[in-house]
Structure formats: structure tokens, C-alpha cells
């Protein structure tokens, strides 16, 4: 299943979908005057096993199949989706979707040209969903024993392995006919540690678009468990976080969620076409300190946020969003690119066939700078060093974003001090990156666990960052 021509064969064999039925359905849509019509076929299997109380109590397996038919006319989109992949339901859906255009169109003939993506960023010999469940169950047992063996204060271990195998096919009125086969695996480990009456939780995970065998390797999962245990034990001794405005150093990797919230969402094409983003009409302006370059790159092999083609059939690419502090571009899907008169950037994504595509991030990160991370820490007189985050959220329009640290330390006179818990960072997207005063040479990407929510749709994403220093950011804690 790793060859990229396979999706068309797959849908032909299973559902009788071929280039002629696809062309006929698009033809139905094009009987009205429309700008674009497309079909998105999906067949997705997933499974997961999870452990708690040292038992793999249950496993689950899911099959999701369906097709979405979309028609665009000006700014309007009509969409219909069904879980029945038959010619009849396709035509019905096309008839529903085209209702947003009131004007009669052409004869409705269209030819599609089967193409294959020019690369495969995530070939796998065995889809993760085909790996025998016994192996996944055995892994969780080993993780449980290992975690409990690390420290007697470990009281609860919860772990899960999630596998996905998604086959998609996109056909569009411009002749596009391209498919993608997308594996995805994820391991989650969460640990509760107790000492006296105090209880704290630690979490770590890993994942990506690769063979499940990667996760089964002790050399891969042991450090994940170590991290979860370490975080839980650390929090047992953590003090309440101070509140107020201070200098903050963010560690490499997962703290890149800052970029996702502070600038990433605000640079999505839909918000900028509608001029509802705090970044609207600001291309060419300075939005970050000199030296700050932020890219969104959907082409990194095996990454959780990567795609061969996006969910509209556009090949993904490396997009420079901010270059040396200057805003260079937005993330686009086909609709918003057409309406803004620019090219799509390969960022048209959707949760499933049951959802309309939107501009979304892939893997978003800041390029490395020159500074030694240790020097960056030494440069702060009094502040906060945050190395891990639970997640964040942004108000696109006001630009205000927030993200919550689950591992952070005080910095006193350039040295790491006590661990603190409950730190929440809040800032203004268009201003926060202007406060970057130091950029480390230690760019790292996260471990492959990010999920981004927008308009009720979840998609897997990646983030990354070198160590950076942010001057005078508001830190929310309980100690006023």
C-alpha cells in the first residue's frame, strides 16, 4: 500500500470509483456556473489499545468511509457528504452542493488526469493498523512495568498506542486526480506520582507517520516513559508560579506551540481574506524581531504534520511566513488563494470527508539562531524558564494568545531555580515575537504529539523552536 498510485486502484476495486464516474459527478456539479468543484474520498481505519491499573482492559477499532462533494462559486461553498460511496449518492451530493450557485453553467464535461505525488514522505511496509494487536498490548505491559520500576512514588500509569491508516483520493474540476496513503502512529504515556497527600501528573508522548515498529523499540519508548515519570516527580516539589510581567526563556522543541498560537493561526488565509486577523494587510511589515524566521513546512519526512498532498490535492511545500522579522506570506487553501489572487500553498486541510477544508498549519517552527542556550539562560536576571506546555489557544481577531506550561523553573541571577507549576503565558500575537531578544542554535522539533483544533475540526500538526528569550511577557500564576 505504500505506492502512491494505489489510492485510485483502491477506490476502484472497493467502490467501483473510476475516472469516468468521478468525471460524471464533477459534471453534475458543473451544470451550474461555478469556479471549482472537487470530490474527496476517504477510507480510514484506526485502532487503539490502552492500559490503566496495569491492565490492557480494552481495545478499539474503527472504520470510517465516505465522500464529500464541494462546489465553489465566488466566496460561496456548497458541501454535501455521505458515507455511501456509490455513483447514485455521489450524484445526489453533487446536486445538493451545486445549489449554492443560482446560475446555469456549461455542458458539465470535465476530464480528470490521474497523477501521483512526486514523492512519498512516509512510506511504510506495514500499515500500523495491520500490526498484530498482541504486539501493542505487550508494549503497554512493558511500559507499565518499566514506569513503576522507575520510582516507588509512581502510583498510576496510563498508556495508549493509537494507529491510523488513511487512504484519500481527491478529484477536481481542474483535472486533478491524486491520492495519498497516510499512516500515523502515536504513543501516550501519563503517570501519576504521589508523595504524602500530594499528587501530580506527568505526561509524554511520541508519534509520526512511520512504521509502528519504531514505537515498539525500547530505545524509543523508554526515554518517553522516563520523561513522563520525571515530570510527575518534579511537580511533586514544584512551587506555585509567580504572577506578573517578566523575562521568559522558552526551551527548544515543543514550546514552539508559541509560534502556532501567536502567529500561525493569525496567518491562515481565511482570516486574512476576510480581514478578521490581527495580521490582516500586514505583508511586508515587521512583525518579529530581526533574526526571527518562521516557516511552515509540510514536506518533512515522517513528521506528524506532514502530507504528500494536502486535502485538496495540492502538493505541500515549505512556506516562509516570517523572514528575518518581516511578514512574508499566509497559509492558503484553494478558495482563499483564488479570492486573494495568490497561489495555494498546500495548506488546505480537513479532519475527514465530513468536513470542509480550511487553511491549516502543517509543521510550524522557527529557524535556529546563533546563541548558546546556556548563555541565553545566563542573560536573565529574574524570570521564568519554560520547557514543556500543555497547549494553547488564540483569539485571532484581538491577537491575544495563551499557553500553559507543565514544566517550568524560576530563573534567578542567570541560574535555574525552583520548579514551578501552573504557569500560563499570555501575550499579543503581533507583538510577542517583537520581544524575542535571543535565539538559540538548538532548533528541535516536537516529539510528534500535536493536534490542532479550528472550527471544530482536529488535524495532526507539528511545532518546533530553538531556545529563545522573550522580554517582558505576562506570566499568570497564583503568587501575586
Amino acid at each position: 500500500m505504500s505506492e502512491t498510485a494505489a489510492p485510485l486502484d483502491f477506490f476502484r476495486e472497493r467502490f467501483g470509483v473510476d475516472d469516468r464516474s468521478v468525471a460524471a459527478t464533477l459534471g453534475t456539479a458543473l451544470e451550474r456556473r461555478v469556479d471549482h468543484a472537487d470530490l474527496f474520498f476517504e477510507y480510514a481505519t484506526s485502532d487503539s489499545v490502552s492500559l490503566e491499573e496495569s491492565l490492557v482492559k480494552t481495545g478499539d477499532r474503527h472504520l470510517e468511509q465516505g465522500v464529500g462533494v464541494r462546489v465553489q462559486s465566488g466566496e460561496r461553498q456548497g458541501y454535501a457528504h455521505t458515507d455511501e460511496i456509490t455513483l447514485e449518492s455521489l450524484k445526489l451530493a453533487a446536486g445538493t452542493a451545486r445549489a449554492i450557485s443560482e446560475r446555469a453553467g456549461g455542458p458539465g464535461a470535465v476530464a480528470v488526469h490521474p497523477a501521483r505525488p512526486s514523492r512519498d514522505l512516509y512510506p511504510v511496509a506495514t500499515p500500523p493498523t495491520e500490526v498484530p494487536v498482541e504486539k501493542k498490548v505487550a508494549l503497554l505491559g512493558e511500559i507499565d512495568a518499566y514506569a513503576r520500576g522507575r520510582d516507588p512514588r509512581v502510583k498510576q500509569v496510563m498508556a495508549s498506542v493509537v494507529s491510523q491508516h488513511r487512504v484519500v483520493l481527491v478529484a477536481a474540476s481542474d483535472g486533478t486526480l491524486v491520492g495519498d496513503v497516510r499512516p500515523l502512529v502515536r504513543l501516550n504515556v501519563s503517570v501519576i506520582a504521589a508523595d504524602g497527600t500530594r499528587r501530580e501528573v506527568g505526561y509524554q508522548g511520541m508519534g509520526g507517520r512511520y512504521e509502528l515498529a519504531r514505537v515498539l523499540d525500547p530505545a524509543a519508548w523508554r526515554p518517553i516513559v522516563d520523561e513522563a515519570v520525571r515530570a510527575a516527580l518534579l511537580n511533586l516539589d514544584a512551587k506555585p508560579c509567580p504572577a506578573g510581567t517578566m523575562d521568559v526563556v522558552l526551551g527548544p522543541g515543543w514550546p514552539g506551540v508559541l509560534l502556532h498560537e501567536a502567529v500561525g493561526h493569525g496567518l491562515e488565509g481565511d482570516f486574512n481574506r476576510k480581514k478578521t486577523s490581527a495580521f490582516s494587510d500586514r505583508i511586508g511589515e515587521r512583525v518579529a524581531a530581526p533574526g526571527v524566521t518562521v516557516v511552515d513546512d509540510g514536506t518533512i519526512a515522517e513528521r506528524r504534520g506532514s502530507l504528500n498532498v494536502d486535502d485538496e490535492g495540492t502538493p505541500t511545500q515549505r512556506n516562509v511566513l516570517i523572514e528575518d522579522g518581516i511578514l512574508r506570506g499566509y497559509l492558503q487553501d484553494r478558495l482563499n488563494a483564488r479570492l486573494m489572487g495568490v497561489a495555494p500553498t498546500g495548506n488546505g486541510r480537513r479532519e475527514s470527508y465530513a468536513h470542509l477544508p480550511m487553511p491549516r498549519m502543517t509543521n510550524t517552527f522557527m529557524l535556529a539562531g546563533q546563541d548558546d542556550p546556556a548563555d541565553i539562560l545566563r542573560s536573565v536576571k529574574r524570570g521564568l524558564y519554560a520547557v514543556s506546555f500543555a497547549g494553547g489557544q488564540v483569539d485571532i481577531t484581538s491577537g491575544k494568545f495563551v499557553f500553559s506550561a507543565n514544566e517550568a523553573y524560576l530563573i534567578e541571577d542567570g541560574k535555574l531555580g525552583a520548579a514551578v507549576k501552573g504557569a500560563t503565558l499570555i501575550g499579543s500575537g503581533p507583538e510577542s515575537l517583537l520581544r524575542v531578544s535571543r535565539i538559540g542554535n538548538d532548533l528541535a522539533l516536537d516529539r510528534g504529539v500535536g493536534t490542532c483544533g479550528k472550527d471544530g475540526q482536529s488535524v495532526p500538526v507539528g511545532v518546533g523552536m530553538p531556545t529563545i528569550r522573550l522580554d517582558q511577557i505576562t506570566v499568570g500564576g497564583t503568587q501575586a
Partner: protein
Amino acid sequence: MSQAAVGPDLILVVDRALARARAQGAAAADAVCLESDGLEARVRGEEIDFVSQARERTLGIRVFVSGPGGLRSAVTSTSDLSADAVDRMADATVALAKATAPDPTAGLPDGDFATDLPDLALIDPRDREVPIEARIATAKQAEAAARAVDPRIVNSEGSQVTTGFRRVAYGNSAFFRGSFESASHGLFSEPIARENGAMQRDYWMTAARRIADLEAPDAVGRHAAERAVRRLGAKRVPTGEVPVIFDPLTARSLLGHVAGCVSGYAIYRESSFLREQMGETIASERVTIVDDGRLQGGLASRPFDGEGLPTRRNVLVEKGRLRSWLLDSYSGRKLGLPSTGNASRGAASAPGVGTTNLWLEPGDLSLEEMIARTERGLLVTELIGQGFQPVTGDYSRGAAGLWIEGGRVVHPVEEITIAGNLGEMLRAIDLVGNDLLWLGATAAPSVRVARMTVAGE
């Protein structure tokens, strides 16, 4: 509501899955089949943004396989409901269950399945006849009303209507069969105000089982716009400890946190800060929290829960005292207690515990009176971020709202956080409003927490 109205097809799918699972050696099984028809449409200004229509059917199967030391279980779902696919999935469920560990606690409920199917006013059949155009027209009305409020309302993320009709059939190998129909309708409006180059958005919404029970579109647009306009000119405030009033929209989120911390799963996993406090005072005496799955017309009302047990009214917190966990049969057995009828069950998810209609009983003060009684403090109207930790109760979230000085609102506030510990916050609730507001299945009036840390300048 009646079984006849649902028709036999969904129950037949359930029957087939159960029979096949039993034939494959399952000791017990249950299955749920869901069908939904939905419409969603968004309007921006006078233009349609999108119209989306959907029809989905999903089957969820759970099986239990006997083994030494307990039952092994697995859960599967499929959107392919052909006879072959159902059989294959049932087979796969049994095979998957055999790979899991025996669990002495696992199994279907021991009995007491729902015997009555009360009419909970979950659907108005006439709503099926309402044309799409009429629903879209209400979104246009909300947009127009929002923009008419103030010349500074210059843009929007749009106004969105949703309409969904749903049929649920559930059956298990203990011979329970049940089905019901429901509907939900909603209108959501999110206008944008601009002044001096800065923009602010806010929203308002309405949701109900019957279209006739929705708030008027003009009112939805107007409320949303008034909320957006009043945020213009927002600024930060100094860091300090002050009283914090949560308006009904934001107070709902506190109830969600409490519900997560009284879920039976969080209790037996010892992952809730409330795990050892049953029967104790966990909140001020002004706090009474109720979950009721049989509220007439309630957005989460249903005659039976995800395991076929009757839904009911559960008082979780009574005048500050913790009275009940939220339980399904599994978490109940773990704690030596009967289910509270709170099993939730999506077709594609394992059964778990969920709230139904959840609310905080109102007090007798208006929000205006609560503000008047606050010398200096914060009225929170929006919260962002996920800064709540159920294991410890630690709470720290981004906030926006209005600043209160001398008992009146003086200016809007943004880019601040509020922090505390949920246990301490619940005990520090010293005022509860009379403005209980149902915008979804969880509802709250305004509440004031006597003291929280606000981080700003």
C-alpha cells in the same frame, strides 16, 4: 417519541451485530446504531459563506469474551453498514477482545434497564419541513442585527445555523432494546468591532431541541455585537488579588471542570482532587449542582443512557456538600456503587461517563447587583487556554472581561490571566446570580469568587 417512528432498520443492524458477536463466542455484547441528518450554513454580511449537508450512519459494537479472571472486552465502529461489513466488524471485535486482559469488573449492567420511554420533547416533527432557505434567512437576520447595533461593527466571522436530526437505537445481549429520535437546532453569531485600528470579536448563541424555542435571530446578533463593542479599548490591569465574577458563559466552564472531577473514572483512577471528599463540604453553601437527563426539552436529555439504564436527576453538590459521583456501571462497580445513569456512548467511542443537562442552581442577585457589590474586581466574559489540572485542581487561564471599580464597570480588560485552585475557588463563591442561562447542555448563572490572582502588568 416512539419506537415505530424510528423504523426497524437501525434496530435490525443492532440485532445483526449482536447475533453475530454471540455466534462468534462473545459472552455478552451491546451495540448502538446512530443516524444523523444535518445542515450547517454560515452567512457573512449578506453573502452565504457555505452550506453543508450531511447524512451519516454509524454502528458501534462492544463485546465481552469470557476468560479466567473476568471478561475481556473490545469496542469497534463502522460507517459501512452493509451486512457483510457488520459481520466482519463483529468478528473483528471478538478477535480484538481476545487480545485484551481479563477484567473482573467488566461487563454489561447487572439489570434495571430502562422500562419507560418518557416523551422528553426532544423533537418537533414539523421542523423537518422547514426549508433550508428559511434557516439561512435567520442567519442573515442575525448578521444584519449585529451590524445595526453600532457603526463600529464592521466585519464578522459570520452567523451560523445548524439543524440536526438524529436517531439512536441501542440493544444488548441482556435483551434490552431501545430507540429514540431527537433534534437540535442552533444559531451562532460572531461579529467584529473595530476602533483605532484594533479589532475585537465576541459571540452569542442559542440552541434548542425545537426551532420555535430558539432565541430570536435579531436578539442573537444584537447580544453578540454588544459584547464585541464593549471590548473595544481593552487594556491590561495591574497584577494582584481581587474578586472575580464569571458571567454565565464563562461560569459554565467551571461546572465542566467540576463534572470531570466527580466522574467515577477520575475517582477510581485517583486522578481527581475531589477523590476523597464524598459527603464533605467542597464548595460554599450557595453552590448546588444538578445533573438531570430527563429535563423536558433538554439538549442532553435522553430516556436511557449509553448502557440502556434509565436516566435520572442526580444532585452532585447540595449547598456545598459533595453528594454524588457521575457513574456508569463500570466505574460504579469499581467504587461499589450503582450507576447514576450517566453512561455516555458515541458510536465510535468506548462507553464512558458523561454529564447530561448540568447546571448550577441560581441565586437571587442580578449581575448588576453583583457588580454593585464589588468594590474593585474583574468580570470575566471570556476564557482561553487549557490551564486546569484535575489531579490537583490547579487553575490558570487566559481571560478577557470588564474591570470594576467602585461597584461599576469602568473599562474592558484583556491579555490577563486568572489563577487559583478550583477547590479553593468553589469554597470562595460568595455570590450567585439569578441569571441562569441555557446556551447548551451545561448552564450556569453568574458567580463571584471572592479572591483570585489576576496577572497583568
